Every structure is written in C-alpha cells, then in structure tokens.
C-alpha cells in the first residue's frame, strides 16, 4: 500500500469523526433550544442579569450589575486575589459608574 493511501484512510477517519461531531452539535443545539425557552422565562420572571458560572466573587457572579473590577475592592491590600478575576474581562461599559 502506498503511503498516500494510508494518509487518505487516516483523513477519511478524521472526516468521519468530525462528521459525527457535527451531527452531535446539531442534536445538542436542538436540546439546548428547548432549555433556553425555559431559561428565558426564568430570566424575565426573576429579573436575572447574569449567568451562574463562578460564585466566588461578586464581579464574576454578577459582572453586569456589580461594581467594575477595582484594586483594593474586597479589603485593603487585595489587589486581585480571586482566580476568576484573571479569566474574566472587566465590562466595557464606559458610561457605567
């Protein structure tokens, strides 16, 4: 067997895997759409503003409605000590005080 044939088989295998993943993505998208309808009702009914991803600091639990990240925010000398603070960008609302 020529080396290019082996490469062709390997590429076909990758295409097969990626094709399966594409079908998976389509199915997951449908599942999530039905969940999102319920989530939209919850957001409206409770007036929620943020996703519950990180709960350690208020500026990563509620980045949309908390004070923007600032040095010495939590206690004197606390420049930034929460790990999520390094992952999340400060909201860019220039007109937000």
């Amino acid at each position, binding site marked *: 067997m*020529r*080396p*290019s044939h*082996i*490469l062709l088989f*390997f590429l076909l295998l*990758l295409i097969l*895997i*990626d094709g399966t*993943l594409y079908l*998976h*993505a389509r199915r*997951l*998208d449908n599942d*999530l759409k039905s*969940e*999102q309808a*319920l*989530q*939209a*009702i*919850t*957001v*409206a*009914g*409770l*007036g*929620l*503003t*943020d*996703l*519950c*991803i*990180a*709960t*350690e*600091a*208020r500026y*990563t*639990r*509620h*980045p*949309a*409605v*908390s*004070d923007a990240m600032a040095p010495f925010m939590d206690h004197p000398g606390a420049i930034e000590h*929460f*790990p*999520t*603070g*390094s*992952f*999340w*960008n400060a*909201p*860019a*609302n220039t*007109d*937000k*005080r």
Partner: protein
Amino acid sequence: MAMIPKSLEKQINILDFSLSSLWRRKLKNLGIMLVFALVIFLLGSFQMLTGALTNSAEAVLGNTPEITIQKMSAGRQEAIPLAYIEKLRSIYGIRAIIPRVWGYYFDESNLANFTVLALESDLMPYGSELNLSLVHGHFPKRTEPGTAVIGRSVQNILGLEERRVFSLFRPDLSLKSFNVIGLFSRQTDLLTNDLIVMNLDDARDLFAMPPSMATDLCVYVANPAEIETIAKKIAGMLPDTRVLTKTQIQKTYQVVFSWRSGFASICLLTALVAFAILAWDKASGLSPEEKREIGILKILGWETGDILAVRFWESTLVSSLAFIIGCTAAYMHVAFFDASLLKPVMVGWSVIHPPFKLLPAVTLGDLLLIFTFSVLPYLAATVIPAWRCSTVPPDSVIR
C-alpha cells in the same frame, strides 16, 4: 493510474516521498505534531468554551430588566430608598417599577457563596409562568413568610435531600429558618444553581435591611424604543444612582470573555512564544543531514521546485493534521468533558460548580484565527530554509 493526469501523478509521487521522509524521522515529526496539536487544542478549547458561554448569555439574557437602578455611595453600590420610586412617577412612559432585594450569603461551614433574591415575581414579565422553572412547588407569596425556593447546588451543599427546613444566619448571628417550598429544575442550572428565592420581608429580615429600602429597582417601560431616553431622564433626576440599561447588561457578556482577559492573554502569548521558538529553530537552518539529502536529490536530477514541493507537503501535512486533531480534541473537551481543564480556572475557588451543558462555539473566524497562528508560520518557517538550501550548488553541500 493511466487516467490520472501527469502533473497530479507527479504530486502524488512527491506526496509519497514526503510521507516516507516524515516516517523516517517519525519520533521528531510526531513530537512536533503533538506539541502543535496541544497548543491548538488549548487555544481552540478556550475559544469554543468562551464562545459557547457568550452565545448562551445572548440566547438567555434577552429578557433582563429593561432598566436597573442602583444607588451609589462613595463609589460602591448600596441600598436604594423606596422613596425613589415616588420621584420617578413623574416620568411618562414608565410601565412598572419593581424593587428587588438581593445579595450574597456566605455559608461559612461549606465555604459556599449563595445568591439570595427576593421580589414580587407576580409583577414581573412572565411572572405567572415562572413556576415552570421548578421541578416541584411554587414561588413564595407575600403571605408565606419563612419559605424559599432553592437552586440544585444549594440543596446539595446544605445536604437537604428529603429535609425541607434549613437555617441561615442574620448579621447579628441569630438564626432564621426557611421552609423549602420549591426546587429549581436542572434545565435552569446555568442561571439558578446558587439561588435562594424568598419573599421581600424575609430577605430584609435576613440582611437586616430597613423596610423602606431595596437593593435595586427594576424599571419596565411601555415602549422599548424609549429605554435609552427614559434611562437618561432617570439618571438626570437621581444623580446619585447608576442606571443600567438592558443593552449595557447584554453587552457585558459580549466582552467579558475575550482575548484581553488575563488568562486568555497568557494562553495566547504562550502559544505565540512556542511558535516563535519553533519557527526560529527551523528558520535558522537545516541540519547537515537534511542539507546532504537535498544535495543528493539535486544530483539525481530533482529540480528546486520539486524539493520545495517535498518540503511544502511535509510541513503542510504536519501542521494541518495537528490543526485538525487539535480542533477535534478541543470540541470533545468542551462538549463531552465539561471543559474540565479550563473549568477550574474559570470557576476559581467557587464551591458551587454548575454543570456546563454547552454547545462548543465553532466559527469560521475562530478557526481561521487559529489556522493563521499555527499552520501559516510553520509553513513559512520550513519552506524558506529549504528554498535557501536548494538554490546552492549540490556539490558544496554533500562534500
């Protein structure tokens, strides 16, 4: 083979030669491919995860309050007097002003941070359908003191299981008991995992907040086109407040995860440095063995173009395969393994770990960005030295 055009057959033969040549140095080439795939995997995972969260936020947060008013004092948010509602009555176009009491409760025994929320949900949009978000039970009514609806992580962390009663400390360390009358469903975990919803009087009692105060005010307007105008009027009328519009809240999640955030910059810089080192190593010259190989090929009658084609095929194969493998692994990492390598950084020291059921965001733009950072520099760094070497006389190389 008779059907294949001559030029294509030549390329297939060159491809065969390149593959054999790669296989001869398999340890080195597989090593490079693995490192490449790892860097692409890291960048890809980051992009797919943050893209998925941004998409979820966009899909879900369409119904956030139209205007949120917070009182500011000394640069920080503090409780807002309910008397401010009366001041706003004169603004024409406001449909409803709904006070909310909310804040954080740190559970010292479990080191968990819960979000406590209280409002009259009947007055909110979709308030009558809100019970759909619960597995069982209903939301606390004004006439039901000492009751709460909790998120699934709150139930787990408090170890409630079948029990219905739990207690929280007031600021003076006296205990306040709650009866669980509802549990949020698994489907709303992304929003409600750490929530404890109660009625306004209970929340004020828990936070020791006077009855004349609230945490913030949600304002709904009659005509959505007037949100910005009314927000400006409110800001003018109540200068000591921060007025947030729905657009601003939604914009937050467009930028909150981006290349500019610290962790992403570190990933990007690390990847760039790795590529720079690799490219510098490659561009600084071929090994004597590789030079001799090129010399022999030229003596055998190969043209410069053919040698460049071999190098081109070799580097295209290594970098493209690494790209495909890295991106595929990144998708699997986010979709099937909850992005478990990035999640610890993302949730930090949070005790509450919401399950991520996310659709990895694969966009052409992101793929092209990763492709440009990985495949193109590698191609340039391998083909150029080969070209420099293949243009020198062969006898000077093999001697």
